[in-house]
């Protein structure tokens, strides 16, 4: 299991304005698979993967990622944990506009303290795998949406994280780019490695075919999964 969450509670705001978003959510992500998290808008999908990714702390419940209890980590250690083990892909690609494609993709390695030369070489390789070998020197605004999302994927994968978390990765893309991006994500992020896992939050039923497993959420709870998680 890559992720094991049990009884997650998370709400926002105080007093009468408080909204309870996650209501005792149980959620797990097996390794070697691409898990899709689906459900109506506002049901708490983004909130749940933020908790899983260690960028939002739950009010109650336990989150284990690769056996590590996230609640046991200080804020700094949690950042280090993300840097080592997680890759994020956002709906808005959130590339740094002042950096070229290669420099953007190299950010996690630079943040780890690796030399610029090594980081850029690894980033160029990741871009190559994603079919952007010739575009490494370009700035984000010179790239199409699909190309930008592929740069973002390269950034999420360059440090070979064990878990990749994606929120609506294809929402800003046309159908064809969406298909390409998902195929690349499956091939590169999992790469046939049974120790790695991918979680994708999406509304986009055009890419449901890529799911090894679908988890459905409604109103702050996981209401079903297909196929059901095989507990070891």
């Amino acid at each position: 299991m890559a992720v094991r969450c049990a009884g997650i509670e998370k709400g926002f705001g105080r007093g009468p304005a408080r909204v309870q978003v996650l209501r005792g959510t149980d959620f797990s992500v097996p390794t070697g698979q691409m898990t899709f998290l689906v459900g109506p808008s506002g049901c708490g999908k983004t909130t749940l993967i933020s908790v899983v990714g260690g960028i939002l702390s739950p009010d109650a419940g336990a989150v284990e990622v690769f056996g590590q209890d996230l609640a046991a980590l200080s804020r700094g250690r949690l950042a280090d944990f993300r840097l080592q083990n997680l890759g994020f892909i956002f709906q808005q690609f959130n590339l740094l506009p002042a950096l070229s494609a290669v420099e953007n993709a190299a950010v996690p390695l630079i943040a780890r303290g690796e030399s610029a030369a090594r980081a850029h070489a690894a980033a160029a390789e990741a871009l190559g795998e994603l079919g952007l070998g010739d575009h490494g020197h370009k700035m984000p605004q010179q790239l199409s949406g699909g190309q930008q999302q592929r740069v973002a994927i390269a950034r999420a994968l360059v440090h070979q994280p064990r878990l990749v978390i994606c929120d609506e990765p294809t929402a800003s893309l046309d159908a064809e780019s969406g298909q390409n991006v998902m195929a690349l994500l499956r091939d590169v992020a999992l790469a046939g490695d049974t120790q790695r896992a991918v979680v994708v939050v999406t509304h986009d039923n055009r890419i449901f075919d890529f799911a090894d497993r679908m988890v459905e959420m409604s109103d702050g709870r996981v209401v079903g999964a297909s196929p059901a998680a095989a507990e070891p």
Partner: protein
Amino acid sequence: MMRLGLKMLFGDPIKCLGLVLGVALCTLLICQQVSIFFGLLGRASSVVNDAAEADVWVMDPAVNTVDVPFPLRDTALARVRGVDGVAWAVPLFKQNTQVKTRRGTLENGLIVGLDDVSLVGVPDTFIMGTSVHDLRRTDAIAVNPAGFRLLYPGEDLELGRELEINDRRAVIAAFVEASPAFSANLLIYTPYARALTYTNGGRNRLSFVLVKAADGQAPEAVAAAVAEQTGLKAVTRAAFRGESIAYVLANTGIPASFGTVVFLGVLIGIAIVGLTFNQFIMESIKQYAALKAIGVRNGRLLLMTLGQSAFVTVVGYGLGLLAAAAFFRFGSQSDALKGFYLLPQVAVAVFVLACAIVLVSTLVSMRKVLTVDPAAVFRG
């Protein structure tokens, strides 16, 4: 990570320029104002400065600046000469008066009357005229070049020009490199007796007595002895310079007005740099959130931003200092700015100030980065 920060900064050339110019402007303004301030203070004591041979100045007990003398009795000179430890003592007369050229140009000038024999107190750089002896000729005076140009705008220095001082004829016989004084830019040096004829009034018009301490005598000790034995005020050259400067500080609006400009300079600097930096950071706040989500620690983000501020400070300060240096380099060729220099201490102090301005601006903007919720990246 620092390189990353710099890349981000250069990615927005307009703001980068705004930040650098903000610091540069601030540096220029403050360097210039503070240096002029010290220059003006220097003018307050320039007559004391220029009389390099005098160890001790003797004056009426009420006097506390070289700019406002009160006449001593003529007998004071002889009494001072009688004090042990005094190698020699000479009179110095000092008074502001009006000077007119043949063409009718009128200027305020400072007449300094010097001991007829030794001419102690005249600045030791003669620009034109062969020596002090030129001043012994009939009606001869020495003026400073800046003063000459006030009287004869746009003309080359020329000896032999005639002036009218208080109905009396004066002939320019020499040019001396005198620092401009606080009360006048035109300085006129002439022997004591002639200086008296150029000004109205009866006897007892001795402004100061200048004393040289005998070999092996400390000026402080001589000053104390003179004060005790004559009942007059006697202070060392350095002390009198300090008193004259303190007088300007305490009795004019100069410190307040320069202080205000410097204070405003700092405020404007913080406003320009702070607001621009803040805007720069706010515009990329989503990217900062993304970096945090990826796992970049706050400390490293801080480092990144400090790299940006360091660049802005160094380049902005460098440009501002260059501009200030150019201002004084070319400005000091004009008479109005004569004697004003960019002081190294001021440059260093302003660098510290520039660092503080940028640091304050950075840290204020940085708070947004440190507190931004990385989960914000997932929100639309």
